[in-house]
Structure formats: C-alpha cells, structure tokens
C-alpha cells in the first residue's frame, strides 16, 4: 500500500497568490471596522466594537440581510433545479448538441452591466417586452412585491448556465458502464436517476451550491443597476448597503464593519457547507 506523498509544494503557488489579495484587504478592513473613520470631517478614532454594537440595532442592516437571504435562497434553489433539469436534457445525444450547449451559455457570457440594463428594459412597464407578451401592465420594478422577485428571476437567467455547464461536466464523469449495468438489471429511468445519477453527482452539486451561494450572497452589480436597492430599500442587499455606506456617505469605518459582518456571515455558511461536503465525501 503506497503512502501518499506530500503535496504541499503543489498547493503553495495558489496559497501565495491568494494571500496577496486576501491578507492585506482583510487586515485593512478589519482595522477600519474598529474605527470611526470619516475622511470628510477628518475623523479617525479608534472606537473598539462601537460600530458592531451599532450594527446590531441598525434596521437597515437587518432589512438588507433579510433581502439578501431571500434573494440567495430563492435564486440558488431555482438555478439548481432548472440547471439540473437542463443538464440532464443536454446529457442525451442529439443533433446540434454542440450548438445548443454553446447557446445555453449565453446568459452567463453576457456582461452583467449589459444584462442588468437589458432586463431593466425588458421589465419596463410601458416599453418592455415582458408586459408586451403578457398583455399586462405590471409594474415589475416599481412594486415592492415584484421588484425583488424580478431581480431573482434575472439572476436565475444569468447564472443558470454556470450550474448547467458544471453539472453537465459532472454527468460526463459518470462512466457509462454503470448506466448500462443498471439498465441490464431492468431499472427504470427515475430509480436510475435517484439511486445512481444523483448520488454520484452530489459532490459536484455541493461544489456548485457553495460557489453559487457565495456569489448570490454578495450580489451587487445586477441588482444595483436594476433597482438601485429600491423601491424603499426593498431590494437593497447587504453589498448594496455596504457600497452606499462606503462610497456614497464615505463612512469608511462603518462600511468596513458591514463588510466584515458580510464576510463572517458568508464564512459561517461556507463552513456549514464544508461539513456537508466532508460528510458526503466520506460515504
């Protein structure tokens, strides 16, 4: 039984590279989060955990947190379900499969700046194609109810290819022999999916889940262009709030505190996912 060699040197370049972009910003942001820093008024005071204490009572923060969680949960769930469906579809062999696969990737390929404006236009009550096709006059981005769901829908459109392409690659890694053996044994399509495909796909699904959730929790550009966080902060996500505090009101201290808290929230969720992944891997 051969012992595994040490792989540290393979991992070193990645770790070094990442340290460059994570260590300094993290320390810098942590440092600022403990200060009251208002460059406009030349204020730079060490205030210990005052910012964090304030954050706990900050309604706008909790509102943003709720919006972000709703956004991430809904968006990721829908992406995963639809993405899995589409990946399974594309896994069959059919004519023009290559073209279709490439076309399916389009939403992910369109720059966010563009797709957000595109959707903003499509959601336009008067000139938007959605209302035109539905024959209705829904105020998609101006109604507190519809706005958040419109944002979710746009995000699902945009990020579904990411899920599809990864799950497709995952499906391709499952050796055909397993399917052939199962079919010889007389198993039907659904049991094959539940007992063979899904379990073998689970590691990829979890990786996709982690990566997508992390991205969804940090969502900024797309929603900011679409709604600006409105109406009345009903679509303001954590990143949008942090952006406004940091770069609009120039409160570098509190903005950093928000960033740290976002990081911690996402970090704890990641640790949870990692536990799941480990449990999955050891099976």
């Amino acid at each position: 039984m051969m012992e595994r060699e040490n792989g540290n040197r393979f991992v070193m370049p990645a770790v070094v590279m990442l340290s460059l972009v994570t260590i300094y910003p993290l320390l810098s942001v942590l440092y600022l989060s403990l200060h009251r820093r208002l460059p406009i008024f030349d204020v730079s005071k060490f205030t210990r955990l005052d910012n964090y204490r304030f954050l706990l009572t900050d309604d706008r923060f909790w509102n943003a947190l709720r919006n972000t969680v709703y956004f991430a949960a809904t968006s990721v769930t829908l992406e995963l379900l639809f993405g899995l469906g589409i990946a399974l579809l594309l896994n069959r062999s059919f004519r023009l499969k290559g073209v279709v696969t490439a076309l399916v990737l389009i939403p992910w390929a369109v720059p966010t700046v563009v797709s957000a404006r595109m959707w903003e236009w499509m959601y336009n009550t008067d000139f938007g194609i959605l209302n035109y096709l539905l024959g209705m006059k829904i105020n998609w981005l101006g109604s507190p109810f519809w706005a958040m769901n419109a944002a979710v829908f746009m995000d699902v459109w945009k990020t579904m290819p990411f899920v599809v392409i990864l799950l497709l690659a995952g499906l391709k890694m499952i050796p055909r022999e397993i399917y052939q053996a199962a079919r010889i044994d007389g198993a039907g399509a659904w049991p094959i999916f539940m007992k063979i495909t899904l379990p073998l796909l689970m590691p990829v699904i979890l990786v996709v889940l982690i990566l997508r959730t992390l991205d969804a929790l940090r969502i900024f550009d797309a929603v900011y262009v679409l709604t600006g966080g409105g109406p009345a902060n009903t679509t303001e996500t954590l990143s949008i709030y942090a952006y406004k505090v940091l770069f609009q009101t120039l409160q570098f201290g509190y903005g950093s505190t928000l960033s740290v808290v976002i990081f911690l929230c996402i970090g704890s969720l990641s640790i949870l996912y990692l536990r799941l992944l480990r449990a999955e891997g050891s099976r």
Partner: protein
Amino acid sequence: MISIFLCGLGCTSDREQKGASGTTIVFKHGKIAGNPKPIRDLLDRFERENPGITVKDETLPASTDEQHQFYAINLDSQSTDFDVLSLDVIWVPEFARAGWLRDVTRVMTEGEQNAFFPGPVQAVTQDGRLFAVPWYIDAGLLYYRTDLLKKYNRSVPKTWQELVNIAQEITERERNLYGFIWQGKQYEGLVCNVLEFIWSNGGGVLENSRPVIASRPNIEALQFMRDLIVKWRITPPLVLTAIEEPTRHIFGSGRALFMRNWPYAWSVFSREDSAVRGKVGVAQLPSFPGHVSAPTLGGWQLGVNRFSLHPEEAEKLIRFLTSLSAQKTLALTVGYKPTRKALYKDPDLLREQPFVGSLYSIFMTARPRPVTPYYMMITQVLQPEFSAAIAGIKTPEAALGSAQKQVERILGEEL
C-alpha cells in the same frame, strides 16, 4: 531590426522633447455627452494658448455614483494622478470640507462671481471661499405638449393643482396619454423631484443647519406627490422605476402630456425623427399657491485636486474652460448650458438654440440641494423614505418623521 531600432530612437527623442518643454496636467471628468471631439478641440486650443502645458483628458463613466467612488478612493489616499476634476454640484461641500479641493477663489476676478448664476456659486462656496468653479448648469423643467394644450385651449399651469386639473381633463379625452411623468426611482433624482414639490410649498430640509424635515409643508407636498398616482391618477405607478431616460422616451413618443426633466431632453425632441418635434414647450415648474417655483439645481463644476503637483497650471485650465468663449463653444457643440449669465443674451447662441433664452429665468431660480458636507449622508436617508412615501409603503408623516430622526442623529453626532 534596424527599423525597430530607429523607431525606438525616434520615440525616445519625442518623449524628451515633451518632457523638456513643460508640464502635463490630467483632466479627469465624466463622459461628455455625444461626440468627445469638441472637448478635445477646446483642450488643444488651451494648449496652443499656453505653450508648455499639455492636457491629458481621462474619462470616467458618466454615472455620478461611479465617479464619486473613484474620487473618494483616490483623494482619500492623496492621489496626484489627476489635477483638474469635474464635480457634481452636490459633492463640492463634502470634498471641500475634506480638504480635497484647492481653494480657487482667486481664479475669479473681483466681482466676477456676479457673472455666474447665484445657485451654483452658492453650491461651491464654503466660508466665503470658492472651492470649484461652475462649469455647466442643469435645472428641473416642465415639459408640455403645446399641441394638446392648444387643442383644449388651456394655458401652461402655474400651480400644481392647475396642472392636475388640466391633466385630468385632457387625459380623459385623449387615448393612450399619461398626465404627468417624473423620476421616482430610489436614487438621487428622486430627491431632486421631491424637493421641487417641497420647496415650492415653502418647506425644506435644513434651516440654519437644523433638520426641519417633518414639517407640515413637507408632509403636504409629499402627500400631493402620492396623490398624483393614487388619487388623481395622472401619474402612472411606473414612475417608481423611472429615471431620466425612460420618462424621456415616454414623452418623446407622444405618450405624456407633462413631464419633469432636465434640459437635455429638449435637443432629443428637436431631432428630425422625433415624434413630438415642434409640439413641445418648456416652462418653469409650477408651485403651490403663495410660493415660488423652485427647480432643483444640477450641473457640474471644475475643481483642482488639492494634492495636485501642478496647481497653477490646473487653475489656468479651469479659468479657460469656464471662460465666456469656452462656455459658448460647449453650448454650441455639446449642448452644455453655460453658467455665465451673459451668454443667455448672446445673439449667436440664441440664433442656434433659441430655446436657451427661455432657460435664463429658470436657472436664476434654481435652488441647490442643502449645501452641507453632510449632504451625501442626508440624501441616503431621504431616498428610501421618499420612495416609501411615494410607493405607499409608509405615510408621508411616518416617512418624514423617520427621516427627521435619522438626520438629527447624523447631524448630532460628535465629530
């Protein structure tokens, strides 16, 4: 091989020549509408008149948020990468207080301040000193359909209630027509719109630097805006998503009777292919009885980076770009409205753009948003609250009451 070598030689001597002859200053500004060539020509003219100074102009996206972010990051770290910057009218008090802008009072000669509109001058002044020079001006206008008003024999409304009555009457008789559209998305433009109602009712945000946000006139004005949507129904709910362009599109395709927007829309409506060409009029915004119309002041100013390594050259550039002739050129080529009053009687400008003459009185009454370094924080409080009131999520009293508390806290915090 030899050609590359020679080219390299050529390049170096070029660089040496430039280096030996003078300084390069960087002019950082948001994207100029339309063709960038006129600005470059203007800068080239400056370079010819000032041998030894080269101007490099670098563009930022026109989005005011993105520019603000860029300047905040750079100026906080005392960047020397740019010398002249263009500033949104609402940032000047903030940047001045932060010590990021050079005092440019001496760029204007004695009494020259009177040559400019009072609003912008007020917005760039702090403690009697000037921290930027007004470059071009913007203010809220009332656009209306001349053909429809004529058809129903109505004159341009002077009060908001008149506007409502006219709009109700006409939209009942005409198909596919919105009464009055404006910008109600949750962004800075919303504050501009709301302030135009609030001010024209005698209300305001700050008085003697203290917040008076939950006042009676304010509540009435905000309620009036909500009523435009739900009670009189002359404004469609879609204004909650609208910024300038969507409303411009609606009016430009003939689907609205009245619109509040900035002067830029006029040139779009005058184009050959515009559906409303020749049918658009522009007037001062209405007010509430007993008060004056109060268009919100917009526009951009030129400032000098306090950390600039070439402040004198930078000041020269500002002086040039805000001079009578440069402003006239910009007005004729790019459509930027001058901040110098004299140009509104200039025969050449009036001949090319007769519309400009009618803007004079409007620009004279344009009011700047609260001129305080706290403004950016205040507007971040106002935007969601105004939006909540207009969307019907909160009553105007509740929204303004909440805004009042939040602004009190901001202003009350010890520095």
